[in-house]
């Protein structure tokens, strides 16, 4: 099985060559590669020999795994997952306890330097990382050990990429992202809460085809999927430009599908592929279902104020600071006013009248 190529596996699963080529063409176009590259993607992917993948889950909710495995119908993306040699994954593997850990160690040893490490969840650093351990090993230690032999790391989901929900203020476990710990390996961030399945398979396909990580933006995300904002690709964008906004979730504007900016949509500052790739096999996506974007693929999206307040509003109340400033300003103003009056009075008191006699001196 280990020597079987990806194309063999897919054929065995009843995927035609035509279906496989369609997937390759779609992936190539999603990655913004020239159409001619589709053939190359197909050739490279077809020859791939079940790459070893170790998937570590740290402080996470399993939402990322759910997103990537719970497609309504078996998609070619999920079959790609079947085609990689997923040697260790808490949720998906049959083995448990020490047997599971042995599988991980065995895989690491066998493919040292070549395996792909996928991580979801953030890593707690506070109190020596006691807040999350697996088989008595802290997340920090396990990540360091596994990263040492990895060819590349993919941070799956916002927690692994930027700390996510565990990192939210006040961050009780001292949670950090993978990239804050591992500095000497190529890391691809695939953020999202959860990330889009097609984006992850696209990134994996790119890596398997070219043997290198795709072009990344300054937050470590593949530019092909995270290069544009939700707002710029949103089908409701014309309503923003026309000044037509839904004011509540059940008013006429909401029924007409107008822009959700006033209801707190974070689309303008969020980079993801939801607006183009959509979810659940292209069925819909949050904005299409009538809810504003939460900005889940951006760092610290939990700390960006209410999900239901417009992007241009303050994230913390300013009235307290304003009242204090007015009071201090008034007090300082009165003090300066009194000082000015004293100066004036002193000048008046020191004033000497000049007489004709003085001038004649």
């Amino acid at each position, binding site marked *: 099985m280990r020597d079987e190529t990806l194309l063999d596996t897919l054929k065995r699963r009843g995927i035609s060559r035509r279906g496989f080529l369609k997937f390759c063409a779609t992936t190539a176009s999603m990655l913004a590669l020239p159409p001619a590259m589709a053939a190359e993607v197909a050739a490279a992917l077809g020859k791939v020999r079940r790459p070893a993948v170790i998937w570590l889950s740290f402080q996470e909710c399993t939402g990322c795994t759910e997103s990537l495995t719970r497609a309504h119908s078996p998609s070619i993306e999920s079959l790609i997952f079947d085609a990689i040699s997923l040697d260790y994954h808490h949720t998906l593997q049959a083995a448990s306890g020490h047997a599971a850990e042995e599988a991980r160690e065995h895989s690491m040893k066998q493919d040292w330097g070549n395996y792909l490490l996928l991580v979801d969840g953030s890593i707690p650093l506070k109190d020596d990382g006691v807040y999350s351990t697996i088989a008595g090993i802290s997340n920090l230690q396990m990540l360091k050990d596994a990263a040492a032999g990895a060819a590349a790391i993919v941070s799956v989901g916002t927690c692994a990429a930027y700390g996510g929900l565990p990192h939210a203020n006040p961050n009780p476990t001292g949670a950090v992202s993978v990239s804050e710990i591992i500095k000497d390996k190529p890391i691809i961030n695939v953020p999202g809460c959860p990330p889009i399945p097609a984006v992850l398979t696209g990134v994996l396909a790119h890596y398997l085809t070219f043997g290198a990580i795709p072009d990344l933006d*300054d*937050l470590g995300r593949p530019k092909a999927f995270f290069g544009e*904002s939700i*707002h*710029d690709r949103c089908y409701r964008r014309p309503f*923003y*430009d*026309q*000044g037509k*906004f839904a004011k509540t979730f059940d008013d006429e504007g909401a029924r007409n599908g107008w822009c959700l*900016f*006033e209801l707190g949509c974070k689309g*303008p*500052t969020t980079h993801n592929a939801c607006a183009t790739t959509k979810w659940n096999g292209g069925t819909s996506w949050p904005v299409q279902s009538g809810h504003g974007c939460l900005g889940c693929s*951006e*760092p*610290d*999206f939990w*700390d*960006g*104020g209410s999900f239901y*307040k*417009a*992007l*241009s*509003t*303050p*994230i*913390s109340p*300013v*009235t307290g*600071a*304003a009242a*204090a*400033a*007015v009071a*201090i*300003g*008034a007090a*300082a*103003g*009165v003090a*300066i*006013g*009194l000082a*000015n*009056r004293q100066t004036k009075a002193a000048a008046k008191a020191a004033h000497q009248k000049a007489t004709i006699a003085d001038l004649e001196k």
Partner: protein
Amino acid sequence: MNAMDLLLWSRGPGLGIAIGIFLFGMVLRLFEIYSLGRKRDLAPARTGGEGSGWRTMFTRSVPDRAQFKRSPVVFTTGYIFHIGFFIVLLFLLPHIELIRSISGLSWPALPTPVVDLIAVITLIALIVTLIYRIMDPVRRLLSTFGDYLAWTVTFLPVLTGYMAYHHLLFDYTLMLALHILSVELLLVVFPFTKLTHMVTLFISRWYNGEWFARKGVAS
């Protein structure tokens, strides 16, 4: 610190600090001005001055024909950028949302492309005023650091807002953060530069008008 951190800081603590300094400075200034007081006018007033004070606040906002002829550039660009600045400030939806979240007041927004056009006109008018100030020897001589500072902090919010909307130079997130920070810079320097004229202008006009009436001069 990434762009999102900067944006969150500018929408949170940064805004609090800027509004705090702005209100502190403005209240301080107004108390200071008011406590200077006026000397008692011992002469009997010709007429009651208050109505004249209110009237002058409006009449002096209309350009005087003779003065307009002497420096048409200053008047034209001055009116354009003031009006343009306030339209952009008060009629772009995200700005209205900000005002609504703080004060509860709101009104209909203008379509974004209209505001966009007005922002461009405002920017051009501001640039012309700067060029005119630098080219004209008398205006250059009279200009101080404070004048250039006031121009810069007025220009930056319009420029960064325009650039953010059109995704120029930086990504929207970073540009939006810079836009909000530029407004915060405006708020911080506001009470300590000639920008205070936004408030004191009306006080001094009322004062002038009232004084005219007491002296029996038409306002």
